């Protein structure tokens, strides 16, 4: 087994928009111009764009790199460049060792072949010998939970069966290097958890690249992360840092969306104290705005708290519903006291105008950022654990735990 490595060195990739050649009418002038003037590799013509710009990274065994970013950022292109499906316009990239590509492979199945025949076909496409596939065959079938359907042509499978078989094949290849693209969302909830566990098992000791929009998966699996936007690396750091940056930027992009037709206008949100909070500490959020006209009952001012490290909503509540003052026109200031019952990390406090009938945001208001540090608690909520440990010696067990001397008791209290 070779020591797997993933290497990406100053890679650039150029793509073209639109059809390549619509008809002979386009081909002839194109070929002619190519013949008469040597085209510069690094120059762009009006229809070309850089899908990947100067991206570099290197992943060693034991490291797992998450790649996140909005649609069209170039994430999947990077994976295709890595696996050799695409070739870079400039720069060098490659993988050393056998690649296990956990990509959506159900599309590569041959519809007329049975599930079992497709296992052999996909296995050999991934570089396994027939004997090696036979050795894994039963495990793959068991993992995919297809059992009696393995001799049925794939065209009769449901989409869930397809996806499960695809994942099962990809997950049994004993790769030197693992490349994962958005496959963790296959099958039902239980299978997703199984897939995630399998992936966690596989990632030990080999380099991994994971591309996903499921930010909490990236946060849970990866050791490093890069944030991409329009083909370039915007940020490089821990998954928590990159996800926070990504989510904050996403919020900022969607900020100025207070429609003038709404009965409310929210213009500022401030948080006190302006320092890192202790978990469980009280803080104040001051929201200022204007009530333009008496609001209809389904439009309300909402506030929510979101964890930035995995983009999950922690808490949301209604500011205005039972507040008769907020139905009168005029400027207002709402002071909200909140207890930071959350684990360590960055959280955003966001305000919005909420449409209760349509169950969606009618307008997003300003937001503020809080940071919670110490004590070291992980997670989106703080359930205020109180831990009491008592040392029990053999004879005390016999005598009963009540007899333990007070000196051997330690209490860790997160409520104070």
């Amino acid at each position, binding site marked *: 087994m070779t020591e797997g490595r993933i290497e990406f060195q*100053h890679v650039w990739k150029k793509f073209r928009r639109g059809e390549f050649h619509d008809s002979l009418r386009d081909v002839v002038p194109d070929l002619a111009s190519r013949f008469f003037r040597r085209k510069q590799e690094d120059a762009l013509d009006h229809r070309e764009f850089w899908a990947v710009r100067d991206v570099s990274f290197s992943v060693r065994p034991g490291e797992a790199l998450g790649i996140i970013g909005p649609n069209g950022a170039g994430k999947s292109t990077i994976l295709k460049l890595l696996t050799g499906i695409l070739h870079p316009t400039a720069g060098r990239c490659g993988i050393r060792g056998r690649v296990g590509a956990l990509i959506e492979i159900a599309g590569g199945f041959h519809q*007329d072949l049975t599930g079992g025949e497709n296992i052999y076909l996909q296995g050999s496409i991934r570089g396994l010998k027939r004997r090696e596939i036979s050795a894994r065959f039963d495990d793959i079938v068991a993992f995919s939970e297809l059992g009696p359907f393995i001799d049925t042509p794939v065209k009769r499978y449901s989409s869930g069966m397809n996806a499960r078989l695809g994942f099962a094949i990809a997950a049994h290849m004993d790769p030197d290097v693992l490349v994962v693209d958005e496959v963790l969302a296959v099958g039902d909830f239980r299978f997703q958890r199984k897939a995630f566990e399998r992936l966690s098992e596989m990632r030990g000791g080999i380099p991994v690249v994971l591309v996903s929009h499921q930010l909490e998966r990236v946060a849970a699996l990866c050791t490093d992360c890069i944030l991409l936007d329009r083909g370039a690396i915007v940020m490089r750091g821990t998954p928590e840092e990159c996800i926070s940056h990504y989510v904050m930027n996403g919020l900022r992009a969607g900020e100025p969306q207070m429609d003038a037709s709404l009965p409310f206008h929210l213009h500022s949100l401030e948080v006190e104290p302006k320092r890192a909070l202790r978990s469980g500490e009280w803080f104040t959020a001051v929201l200022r705005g204007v009530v333009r006209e008496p609001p209809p009952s389904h439009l309300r001012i909402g506030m929510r708290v979101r964890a930035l490290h995995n983009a999950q909503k922690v808490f949301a509540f209604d500011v205005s519903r039972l507040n008769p003052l907020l139905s009168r026109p005029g400027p207002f200031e709402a002071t909200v006291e909140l207890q930071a019952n959350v684990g360590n990390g960055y959280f955003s406090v966001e305000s919005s105008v909420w449409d209760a009938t349509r169950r969606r945001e009618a307008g997003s208001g300003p937001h503020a950022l809080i940071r919670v540090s110490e004590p070291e608690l992980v997670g989106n909520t703080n359930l205020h654990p109180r831990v009491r440990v008592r040392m029990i010696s053999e004879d005390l067990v016999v005598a009963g735990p009540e007899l333990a001397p007070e000196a051997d008791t330690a209490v860790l209290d997160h409520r104070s």
Partner: protein
Amino acid sequence: MSEPTPLSASSSSAGEDIDDAWLPPADRRQSLLQDYREIFGRELWEHRGLLIELVRRDIRVRYKQAVMGFAWAVLVPTLVVVAGALVRVAMAYVGGRRLEFQEVAGMALKALPWSFFTGALNFGTNSLTVNSNLVTKIYFPREILPLAATLAQSFDSSIGLGVMLLVSMVLGVHFGATMIWVPVLALCLVLFTAGVTLVTSCGNLFFRDVKYLVQVFVTFGIFFTPVLFEPEMFGPLGARLMMLNPLAPILEGLRLSTVGGHNLLEPLVVTTRHGAVLAWTPWYLAYTAVWAMVLFMGGLIVFHRAEPKFAEYV
């Protein structure tokens, strides 16, 4: 945003402490020899298991959900032979002579390689576009797809050949020692066909016109290839012109070495109504062998050099 200029990889990686000798070089231009070493070593030999698996798949899939199954492998050339026999009966009738069984047997043996060629060309030309879901998702040497299509078709044709030989023998056609030329000619045919499909499959990936062009070519090719007739029917000059078609020496060689019992290392002169016609010379064998080698090796290079663009254009 101003468009930045790509840096050259060699200057940028200098000074960093990483072993990257295994990475493919930024400059992908290389000599023919390196290309061939890559094609035969790193790609074909290492992925021979995949080639076998894909051939197996093509064979299995071809006759799935078909009641006749493998009978089709025999049926298709048989239909060509029946059509040819009708033409020959008509020709014999017009010419006022009897149709020899020998002629029909010879034609049957030529119909087989012809249907191999057209079948492989059809399957091979489409092999990349039909499997575009594989081409855009997983890396493997793409040469394997058209090559597998060609090999799967030769499996079909071998069944047909076996049946054909058996039937001929039952019907009393004598086969002599000159049969040893059959494998040589078959090899030439497979290499030639593989070379053509490598080029057409690759062409079809970029321009779907190729598919239609191939159709037309196959439909009308039978008029310019001695399948249903023999070149010597056209007189001395006509025979020579007809034998310029690289498939003609293969088909004629097959007929002469089996039904004709002729050793292909010796020339053969046939007397027809138009006088003495040179039906065979060993040069024909050399001619077709050169075609096969050049097309196969050339096809591999064309394919290999176009391959980096496949996933983007398919």
